[in-house]
């Protein structure tokens, strides 16, 4: 799957990702892939050497990856966080806000639709993983 959208200026990570199970054994791996049932917190001891975390969405209706992404960002992970698999246009704003900064959908999106989706929400009600200023903060400074 090709990365269709990327919100980073650094060099894309070329390392192949490995599973969480294998990651524990490979002390020098820099790219890992989370499945929906994997616990993102098992990666927390290794964040300083991780450059890419792929989070797989076998079905866009399974939102566990959103929690995984936020947990990694809350723990200070600054590397690439890529949503892969059954990722559709209408999920993009929520995925972006959960902390994903690259997107590799299994079915490429229509670029104009995706760009409209990324730009759709000028304001949001909640604090999020990309530092959006929530409406309550705008109301009260």
């Amino acid at each position: 799957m090709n990365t269709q959208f990327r919100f980073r200026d650094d060099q894309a990570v070329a390392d192949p990702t490995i599973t969480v199970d294998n990651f524990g054994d490979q002390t020098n791996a820099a790219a890992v892939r989370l499945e929906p049932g994997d616990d993102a917190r098992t990666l927390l001891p290794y964040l300083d050497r991780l450059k890419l975390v792929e989070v797989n969405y076998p079905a866009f209706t399974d939102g566990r990856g959103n929690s995984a992404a936020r947990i990694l960002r809350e723990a200070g992970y600054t590397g690439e966080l890529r949503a892969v698999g059954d990722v559709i246009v209408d999920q993009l704003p929520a995925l972006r806000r959960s902390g994903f900064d690259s997107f590799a959908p299994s079915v490429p999106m229509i670029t104009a639709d995706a760009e409209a989706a990324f730009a759709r929400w000028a304001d949001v009600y909640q604090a999020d993983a990309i530092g959006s200023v929530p409406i309550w903060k705008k109301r009260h400074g």
Partner: protein
Amino acid sequence: MYKYDQYDQAMVDTRVAEFRDQTRRRIDGTLSEDQFKSLRLQNGLYLQLHAYMLRVAVPYGTLSSAQMRVLGDIADKYDRGYGHFTTRQNIQYNWIKLDEAPDILADLAKVEMHAIQTSGNCIRNISSDQYAGAAADELVDPRPYAELLRQWSSFHPEFLALPRKFKIAVIASDTDRAAMRLHDIGIQIVRNAAGEIGAAFYAGGGMGRTPMIAPLINGFVPLDQLITYSEACLRVYNRYGRRDNKYKARIKILVHELGKEEYTRQVEEEFAHLLTQDIEPPLAELERIKTYFTDPAFEAGASDEVDRSDPDFALWIDRNCHAHKQAGYIIATISLKPVGGIPGDASADQMRRMADLGKQYSFDELRVTHAQNIVLPHVRKADLYTLWQQLDAAGLSTPNLDSIGDIIACPGLDYCSLANARSIPVAQKISERFAAQDKLDKIGELKLKISGCINACGHHHAGHIGILGVDRKGIENYQLSLGGCEGADTSLGTITGPGFSEDGVVDAVEKVTDLYLANKQGEERFLDTYRRIGMAPFKEALYG
């Protein structure tokens, strides 16, 4: 009541634009029906047996007159001249055309309404006590907390693809009028020993095929941690709720399988972490919201005198009115359960009439109840007779609140694609049978609830008498249960035994009530008698 500022308005306007775009992409084929399904559901749009159904959110059941008027206008303009008020304090329209759905959402947005997250696997509309802000027995008005939660839960990026739907209720009285402990999360606003206001959290309640009463998981969450605690509850559920079987995906199963202690432990751990993440709105936001829920301008020294010389009026007061916290005022409920009618249905004209009466007699405010009726929360007692006469002229004065005529029923097989059996005709027959026998007064409070399938939208588990429609080898069959109750003494009904035919279940209800009347002691309600004498004599009467 709450008023949108420019931010709230922009949110619903943006949603209308987003949904218009999604509808366009569905119609041009860019979106598959499977993909569109979960998107339209999060806008309250279901595909039912005959047409699309649109469920409109009525946050915590509160409506202004202008909003109620628009609900009536939408029924005329886009539907067949009526709407159906639901057990989640919302309203549904049954005959919607897909290409008109975005226009309806646009009409709603003009009066600060929406259909956001009224279905789908997300946090649904927050429900509350229909007497909030008016009841004599409440600690505080629960609605500001519900509004805070409404904003937090709207388009929450982490919680839009949960294992299953998620329902939250907020109350602030010991008398629970919102079936709070039958919600995924139930919140009761409480005062602790130090005199501070906080929130007691109950988690893992629900109806459906596995009814559960939510256990208390935290007796006092401080108000400046309310959102953070809610987020912790949801995150544990989103990560660990079952996704292998949709019938085991609600939070009640997770809490049950982990055990209350382990679920609570995980929530507390997540909570401790989230407290470091600065996700809680400041208390100033809650205070800002509260300013919209201050008391209306009650007339000081309004008289408590009511002339009860008209016996029909006196009966309606006794059955449909409730004590108000303000001297000289009363809470009046408009029953949407006329004899032989469809529970919860109102015509466009009736909605506009109720809007007018709400404006004239109730400080511009109406409420939808989970029992599918409409409340005028702040009526001056001096106006009560005039109000009643006008309700009577509009066919809206049925005096049957909380009686066997005040039946909760889901739409059932007449509309719903999930149903196994019809609910409406059973409700109509029971209502007609008991009205004809003039037994309402003798029977007194008896909450009868009918669901047309195991999903339990008609709350049959919580009915003093519950009826569940099932499909038995292609024939509609009705199971009877007794002893369910919502409220502070929440209990789940017990099935009596083999089911009945449509007419048979009406006879069975009559046998059950006859047995109650024969055994009733003093002022006992049906539920009290049942709890005292148990199931055995009822079984004997039904099957002996």
